[in-house]
Structures are given as C-alpha cells and as structure tokens.
C-alpha cells in the first residue's frame, strides 16, 4: 500500500504543478477575452459593447496570488467558471458535450491499436524474419510516418467522400435518438470507423515495433531458455513466458499514450467533425477562453494522471516485482 500511496502523492503533486502551470500560461498570453469576444462579431457590434462585455466577464484587477487562490478554491469545489466562448454556459457543461465522445473514440482507438500492435509485435518477434516481421513491419512503419490527420483526410476523401462507405462526419446520425439501442450503437460504430482507423493505422506500427524489440530482448533471456528446456508447448512459451514479460514496458507506454491521445486526437476530431474536446480546445485558445482552457487542461491532465495511476496499478498486478516495493 505504501507504494500506491507514494504514487498517489506524486500524482497529486504533478496535478498541482500542472494546475499552476494552467493558471500561469493563459495569463501570459496577451489580449483579453472581452476584446476577443468582441472581435468575433467582426464589426457588427458597437465599441460600447466592449465596456459592457468587460463588466459581464467580471474582470478583476486583483493581484495574481488572490486570483490564484480563488482559482484553486473554485477548482476544488468543481466550479470551473463560465466559458467565455459559450458564455454564459458553465465550462463543465461545455466540456460535457465532448468529453465522452473523445474518451470513447480516442480510448477505443488507442486500446485497439495497443492490443493489435502488441499482438503483432509478439508474433513478429516470435517468427523473426517471417513475413510479419520483414514485410508488415516496414509497411506499418511507413503508414505510421504519415501525420494521422492526413490519414484522416485521405480516409475521409476515399471512403467517405469518394466511395460513400462511411459517414463523413459526426459521431452519430442526427435523426437517431442516442441511447443503448442496437440501431444507435451500430450507427455510432459506423461513424467511428474512419476516425478510429486513421488513429489506429498511424499508431499501430509504433506499438508493434516497441513490443517486437522488447520481446526480442526477452527471447534471449534465460527465462525463455528454461521455458524451452522444460519442454513447454510453443504457444505457452510465447504468451505466458515471453509476451507476459515483454508487456511491461509497453504497458507503461500505454499509460503515456492514453493521455496523449486525449489531446492528440484533436486533429482527427476536427477532420471528422467529431464532437470531442479537441475542437473545444482550439476554440478556447482562439477566443482566449481561459476558463474553458483551464477546464480542458484540468480534465486532460487529470485524465492523464488517472490513466497513469491506473497503469501503475496494472503494472502492480502484472509484475509482482513492483509489489515488492508496495
């Protein structure tokens, strides 16, 4: 338990540090949201509105430390304030429109990519020099070299626009009532195919390569020699002895990737008009929507921390050695 508590302590510290950074960075940027808001009307609003807007946004000239304490206090109470860009809707509501979809799309894509890539890596390492290793690995590496938003564009162009096999945009069809009905789930799946595939294709090679390399190292160990010497069936040696041991570094990377995708999928979301947090973030930055930005940062950061913590626990379960420090 000590180990778990220690990790938890680190994550709390990291959370605090990133929250502080979240507070500082937006405030370093020039300009203020009222003028930004004003500007979005491109001349259809009178200059007097600016004064009114400033009043409405409640700009305080309070010293930074006071603002900071208020900021922390609000966060602790789950109050992220009102979004400027979607004024006067609360940030939580705005984030709520996208979070689940991003987590769903990016989460599924990363999990699939990780699972498939890792499996391919295991097989490639097991059959060194086989077609998987010598042909598929370079192909995947080549596909992985494409920017994934570009793959998304191409997929959209080919399968959505050109062939019409998949919807061009959105997470579900507008005429379906969201719910746990078969029709809706099928529709949702159809919508997720292209965006998820573009992420999977772009990241598959990385997982495969890293798993293959760790696996190759494991294959050279005495653990594997012993397993072979014991006359264990090949499949058992491959999965239970080699893959289990090679999995750990990949799992650690998986924690990192989960967090990365939560923010990194934003390009894909934009290409496919997927109602995720990615576009919200761009919108928040363009409008200098501090509360929304901070809210998104908070959510993304906490998600990353939680994912890493979960991965720590997973490692604890996967690797008894870490339990020694527990």
């Amino acid at each position: 338990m000590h180990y778990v508590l220690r990790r938890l302590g680190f994550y709390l510290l990291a959370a605090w540090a990133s929250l502080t950074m979240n507070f500082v960075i937006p405030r370093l940027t020039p300009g203020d949201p009222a003028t930004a808001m004003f500007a979005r009307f491109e001349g259809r609003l009178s200059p007097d509105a600016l004064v009114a807007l400033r009043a409405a946004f409640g700009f305080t000239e309070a010293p930074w430390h006071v603002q900071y304490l208020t900021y922390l206090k609000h966060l602790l109470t789950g109050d992220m304030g009102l979004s400027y860009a979607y004024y006067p809707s609360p940030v939580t509501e705005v984030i709520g429109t996208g979070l689940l979809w991003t987590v769903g799309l990016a989460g599924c894509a990363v999990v699939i990519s990780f699972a498939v890539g890792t499996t391919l890596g295991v097989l490639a390492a097991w059959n060194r020099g086989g077609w998987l290793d010598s042909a598929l690995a370079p192909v995947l590496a080549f596909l992985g070299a494409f920017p994934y938003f570009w793959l998304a564009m191409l997929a959209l162009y080919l399968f959505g626009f050109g062939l019409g096999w998949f919807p061009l945009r959105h997470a579900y069809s507008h005429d379906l009532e969201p719910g746990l009905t078969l029709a809706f789930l099928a529709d949702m799946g159809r919508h997720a195919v292209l965006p998820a595939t573009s992420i999977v294709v772009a990241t598959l090679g990385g997982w495969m390569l890293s798993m293959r390399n760790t696996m190759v190292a494991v294959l050279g160990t005495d653990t594997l020699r012993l397993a072979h010497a014991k006359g264990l069936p090949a499949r058992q040696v491959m999965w239970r002895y080699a893959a289990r041991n090679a999995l750990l570094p990949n799992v650690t990377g998986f924690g990192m990737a989960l967090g990365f995708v939560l923010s990194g999928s934003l390009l894909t979301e934009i290409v496919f008009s997927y109602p995720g947090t990615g576009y919200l973030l761009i919108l928040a930055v363009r409008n200098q929507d501090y509360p929304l930005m901070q809210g998104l940062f908070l959510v993304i950061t906490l998600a990353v921390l939680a994912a890493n913590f979960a991965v720590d626990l997973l490692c604890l379960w996967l690797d008894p050695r870490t339990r020694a420090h527990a």
Partner: protein
Amino acid sequence: MRDAIRRLLRQRKAAVGASILLGFLVLALVGPFFVQDPTELLGQPHQPPSGAHLLGTTGQGQDVLAQTVVGARETLAIGFTVGALVTLVGALVGVTAGYLGRRVDDALTLTTNVFLVIPGLPLAIVLGAYLPSGPLRMVVVLTFAGWAWNARIFRSEALSLRGRDFVAAAVVAGESHARIITRELLPNMASLVASSFIGNTLYAVGAQVGLEFLGLGDVGAVTWGTNLYWAGNDAALLTRSWWIFVPTGLCIALVGFSLTLLSSAIDELTNPALRLPPRAPEARPAATPVHLAPEAGALLSVRELSIEFTTEGGLTRAVDQVSLDIAPGEILGLAGESGSGKSTLGSALLRLLPPAAAITQGRVFFEGVDVTALSPEALRAFRWSRVSMVFQSAMSALNPVLPLGEQFHDTLAAHDRTGSRAASYARARELLAMVGLKPELVDAWPHQLSGGMRQRVGIALALALEPRLIVMDEPTTALDVVVQKELLQRVVELKARLGFAILFITHDLPLLLALADRVGILQAGKLVEVDTAQRLRTEARHPYTRLLLSSFPHLGADDVPPPAADVLEQATATNKPGLAALPGGRR
C-alpha cells in the same frame, strides 16, 4: 565512431533511410532554384496535374510541385533544429539530473515528470499564442513541449552509466565533474544522442505539421504544414483536388519513414539482439566417416559432436568433435574457461542452441535414442522428462511474473504429469521440501527469494519430472561459498536418493574435483582430457589441465607450482578462437 558509421551504412535499413533523407535534403537545398515561385499565382485554381503543372495547382492557382519542393526547406530546417534543440535540452537536463543525483535529481525529475503528464499539443498551442509568429516561434514551442521525454531517457542512461565502474575509475583518477560528463559519459551516449536526435526530428516534423495544419503556424510561409492548411482552406475535398494534399503528405511520410529506418538501424547497431540472427550452419557429414554408436550401458553418449556458430567472420567451431559418455548415476564434471564451449555442449544435449548455432557433425544418444534426430514434438517430450537442466542464473531463469507453483504446474502439465492445478501444487510443495525449502513458498514469486533459494527452486524444478540426467551449468557461480556448499550437499544427497546422473559444468576446477566422479577438461571446444577426479588431482597429463590446476590458490596445502615454461607454452599454443564475443559465450 567512424567505424560505427561505416557499420551503420552497411545495413540495408540505414542505407535506404539515409538515401531518402539525403534526397530530401538535396531537394530542400537545391530544389527551390529549379521550380517556380510557390506563392505566385501561375495558373487556374484546382487544376489537376498536367504538363504545365506536374502536380497540378492549388485552390489559388499556385504550383503544387513548387510548394512541395520549397515547403521541404523550412519544414526540414525546423525539424532538424528542433530535433537538435530537444536532444540538447533533454540531454543537459537528463545527464545533469542523473549524474549529480540527490536534490538536483529530485527537482529535475519532478519537473520532467510534470512536463511529461502535461499534454504537449495543447501546451504548444497555448504557448504559440504568446509568442510572435515566425519560424522561431515554432522552434521554441516545440522544444518547450518536447524536451521532457528526452530528459527522462537521458537521465536513466546517465544513471546507468554513472553506476558503471569506469566513471568511478575516472573519479578515482582525479577527473573533474565537467570532464567526466563530457569525455566519459557523453561519448558513451553517442548512439543514444543519435537515435534521440532522429526521433526528435521525427516528432518535430510531425508536431510542426500538425500545428501548421491547425493554422497555428506562420501561414504566410511555405511549409508542408501550411500547404496542408491551405489545402483544407481551399476546399481540396470539396473540389476533389486530391493532388493538393497528397504529394505533401507523401513527402512527410517519406521523411518520417526514412527517420524511422535510421533510428531502427541505430537501435540494431547498439543492440545486436534486435538484428536478425545469422542463419545456423547446416549439418555436414563427417570428413572421415566414423561409426557413431552409443556406448553400451551408457546413459548418455556424445559422439564426435561438433557445434558451429555463424558469425560475421564466418563459421566458428565452438565444440570440436567431442565424444564422451555418462553412466547412470554418475557425476561427470566438465571444466573449462570462458569460450571453451562447455555451456554450448551442455545446451546441445537438450538441443537448446542459440539460433545462430547448430550441430554440424556427430550425434547425441540418450538411452540409445539419437537426440539430434528427434522431431520437434518428440524433442519437446524428451526435454526435461529425460534430461533437465539447472542454469547458472536461476535468478533470471525463473519467470518473474508467475508464482513458483505456476511454473511447476506448467512443467508438469506440458508433460501430462498432473491431473489438476491442485495436484501440481501438491507436487511442487513436495519438491520444494525435497531441496530444503519451505513448501509454502509455492505461492511466492521469484523476486521474493534469495539467490540460493532460487537456485534450489531451479533444482526442484529440474527434479520435477524425475529425469535421468540433469545438466547443471555453473549452478553455483553466482553464489557465496557457504550457500554453494549447502546447495551441493543437497544435490549429492538427492542424487543418492533418486539416482539421476549429473553433467556438472563449471570453471571452478577444485570444486569439480571435490564433487565429480570423472572430470573432462575442455579447451577451445576440444575435450583435452577426461579422467577420474582422483587421478586428475595428482597426475594430470595434459599441460592445460595442469595450468588450470595451478591457477587456483589453495588454502591448506601449499599452492600447486605453475607448470614449467615449456609446458605453459604448449598449453596456450592451442589456437583459442575469439569465442568470448559469441552470443552465449561467457566471460
């Protein structure tokens, strides 16, 4: 260094990667002089590829080819600059943290970890908003958002190097911190620096293109990212003008691919295990046909056995026409120095040779069965049930992620010696007790045991299927003498009870003489002498045996005097192949 680069270029991966990259570099440097002005509106918008515009025109009527070629320049320039900067910052922070340790390390590591969990892309976006536009902004933003990962890698590398003796040796020699970092640590990180630089460049190109695609770069410049940005803005999709974004995407992918190839080539260079192992040599008929038949009554008969490795320099013979026999219940010792082929010989009895090695000549007969001719399935059944093995490094040979009971169960189940998991565990408890361990340890994980205990587990495991022969490959080398003796006493006791034979492999001749019935001396793959322990101790004939005997200081009696000079010369004159560098060869 130059040697390393030469070896790198010999690799096909590196050669392909380097030539693609070089091609793009040349394109970026020279290309812009040969194409039209990429910003000039030369033709009609959205024109498909034609003679006038080889790759068509953009939504504004600019030449796509010109944009692609000119775009390479800034994209690659920023990519390489950021790659270098991120590597530099990461290396500086990481090496400082790793080398100085303590407080500095704590602070820097915490900072690094915090940066690692803060999502990079949003960070870059926000930072980009603060800085004035231009290529410099991209460089600063990407460096700021990307250094942490590198710092982490460099820190762990610095940590592992710092623990290496040559750093301590440099300290003892009186070198300064700065000199140790620059002349001792950094040169050893050359390959890490190179692969980090390449990886970071890959990151920089990708992130830069992504940011520019979002319109967060300098959209006035001509780069690959802005090309894609304009492709989106100029309705490439709507007008079905695939030629606007496809060439740029392909270029990015090719550059990325070449970088991936290079980095994987560097990985393979530094970690030979990643390279495809050379093909094992084919078996050859003996030059002079000999009658290969097992000795009657022998448990194991090795006949004219030769094992060869494929190495870069060609074939190397690790075991050279060795013949020996082991009687039931006998302990045969096999002594030799590193590279003498003793472990290779031991593994060959179970056909456990590394991929690059193969039995090229001779036979191994076990109870009259030719082991070298067994089918894969028969071999699997043969292993462990007839001959089992104890490794030198039971510490690392046990599967760290399975409790001991599982590892026993796997073994028993693989040979259909168990009805259920419960039965396996019961048998495991029995076996553990047999080697003097507490039966409760069946639920323990390997890391919870000391080295001596793990070696006992190794022996218990070797006994699980009641084999007739156990190959013990330096089972006590890593142990303290007291533990060694406890263990060996237990082994001898079990042997007396269960009647198995042992092939005991070690470099420790005195130990062997005390333990074995007969001892064979291996030198450079050849069995130079086999005799009873008693006789060897007093009247060893081969000079090499005598050299070995004299190498060990003795406690009680006076030391054995070194052999006379001529004998020594004769002993070492035998060509010693450079086997130390072989995979599987031990130092």
